[in-house]
């Protein structure tokens, strides 16, 4: 009798079990696992090179026409060449804050892989509902908050893992760390990613837990995907956008997440800006996580 029916002491029992259940679906399925690793390589390798804006202004692409070149001495030509090289790196630094576009965009990619993984993995809640697992879990003494949090955590952990992989892959592809980078900054990157993933996954779970059809969350994801991606600083700097788009991008929490990551990884860190990024993302995460968890909670206690 004594060992049975013990009312569990911890309110959080089952949290790791449920989180790990989600994660196992991923790391124990070799095909899925490999695909999640291949996807960022494709993105970085293809998109990163296809959209390489630095090639547009690179001095290496400038050859002087012969009649123009004959008017200058060799020394003058090399000085001119240096001038254009300086100019192009000025343009790049002015626009992207770095001369390496692939570094600029790799950080955007890190944040977006996190976003997509969060959005899609939140869908498992629809299956849990349709297949009865949710009801089964609700009939056990596991806390309702734990059921929701396990979904949030598994989505968050998975996203952060993928973000780390992209960073690893980006280095051999030409990723350049900023002058003020030190390995501890990586902790900051994971911290800000953790915040945004918590917020977004809570929001998606609150939406998904109500839908009985897998199509509904798919439609929501597709609707939000594009504006969140392109109305942000992921691929293009905000201050070079038309002013109406700047307004959209500056309320997009992804912009702050990405800027925070860039401050830590590739820029010469501006700590004021970094603190601001963390504050915005932190507030966003706190509000959205609370709303998401409260909504899910109310649904589960119907």
């Amino acid at each position, binding site marked *: 009798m004594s*060992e*049975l*029916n*013990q*009312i*569990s*002491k*911890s309110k959080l*029992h*089952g949290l*790791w*079990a*449920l989180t790990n*259940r989600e994660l*196992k*679906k991923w790391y*124990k*399925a070799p095909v899925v696992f490999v695909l999640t690793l291949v996807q960022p390589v494709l993105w970085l390798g293809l998109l990163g090179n296809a959209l390489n804006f630095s090639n547009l202004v690179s001095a290496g692409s400038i050859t002087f026409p012969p009649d123009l070149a004959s008017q200058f001495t060799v020394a003058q030509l090399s000085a001119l060449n240096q001038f254009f090289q300086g100019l192009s790196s000025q343009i790049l630094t002015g626009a992207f804050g770095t001369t390496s576009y692939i570094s600029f965009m790799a950080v955007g990619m890190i944040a977006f892989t996190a976003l997509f993984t969060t959005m899609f993995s939140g869908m498992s809640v629809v299956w849990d*509902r*349709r*297949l*009865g*697992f949710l*009801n*089964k*879990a*609700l*009939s*056990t*003494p*596991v806390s309702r908050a734990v059921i929701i949090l396990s979904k949030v955590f598994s989505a968050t952990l998975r996203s952060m893992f993928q973000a780390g992989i992209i960073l690893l892959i980006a280095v051999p592809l030409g990723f350049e760390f900023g002058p003020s980078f030190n390995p501890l900054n990586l902790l900051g990157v994971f911290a800000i990613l953790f915040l945004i993933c918590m917020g977004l996954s809570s929001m998606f779970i609150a939406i998904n837990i109500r839908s*009985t*059809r897998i199509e509904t969350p798919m439609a929501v994801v597709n609707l939000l995907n594009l504006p969140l991606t392109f109305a942000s600083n992921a691929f293009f700097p905000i201050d070079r956008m038309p002013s109406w788009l700047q307004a959209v991008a500056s309320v997009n929490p992804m912009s702050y997440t990405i800027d925070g990551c860039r401050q830590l990884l590739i820029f010469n860190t501006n700590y004021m800006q970094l603190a601001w990024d963390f504050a915005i993302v932190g507030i966003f995460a706190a509000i959205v996580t609370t709303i998401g968890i409260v909504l899910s909670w109310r649904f589960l*206690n*119907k």
Partner: protein
Amino acid sequence: MGEDVIKAEGLTKVFNHSLVAVDHIDFSVKQGEVFGFLGPNGAGKTTTINMLITILKPTEGEASVLGYSIAREANAVRNIIGVVPQEYTADEDLTGYENILLCADLYGISREISEKRAADLLNLVEMTAFKDKKVQTYSGGMRRRLELACGLVNRPKVLFLDEPTLGLDVQTRTATWEYIRTLKKEFGMTLFMTTHYLEEADSLCDRIAIIDHGKIVVVGSPEELKHGLGGDLITLAIKENEDVTGLIQKVEHVKEVRKEDGTYRIKAEFGEVTTPFIIEALRRKGYTVTKLTLTEPTLNEVYLEYTGRSLRDTEESGEAVFAQRMTVRRARR
């Protein structure tokens, strides 16, 4: 015996302020009993079980499990009950063993105890050989046994089974009944089950409640319910060409005698006891019985008597239909 394990008083669930799914029902389930809930689709079976297992809150009324209120002491209830849902809820991507451990974790049972328990339960449902295979490779019967093992992981005092044999073939269904009988006998567990299969209710349940339109229409043991219909039907013929209606009528427990084309159709209570008395009464007066059949009413007739014969075209949610389809499809693998 005698102690009420489950008690419901005026239990009611109204969805969206208008749809009355369960309408002020009262019943009690006694210690060690197998209690069956029967009823057509949409009658309120699943809503009732969902309230008792604390995943739905009653709109009105009260129910308790072993004295704990399902509304106010839900966590205490959850700790002492086991649930075997209608659907196959085991995770396809995990092994049977991992699934049982996962269920144990949901009850906050320490790994030390749960590993031992999982081994015992796998043994009980004869699944030890397949414990490290992924659930996606399991047949319907194996899945059902795994669900049963998961439902027992917290050593529940009361086990709730929602349509435990939905979609299973006859062999697997019979085997599942055996497990249920074992549970009742060896662990003295109280069982609450819903079912569509009347022969299942007849062979497993000590008492049955028939529910329709959210109300309990009748409660009793299968025997009582069948007798309630007016007893067994005896048909007999005699060699002599005389009317013995009056003679048969005098035998104890005979309720009604009709003569049709030379055979007597007799409605009597306790048919297997009454029949010899009828034969004896006829023989003593020198009559010879040439033909005799005894038919006991089946639960089918009881069920149709109380719920009517009209087809039910109640609307069901797409979600419920999908879940049932998935269950049946997986059961047939």
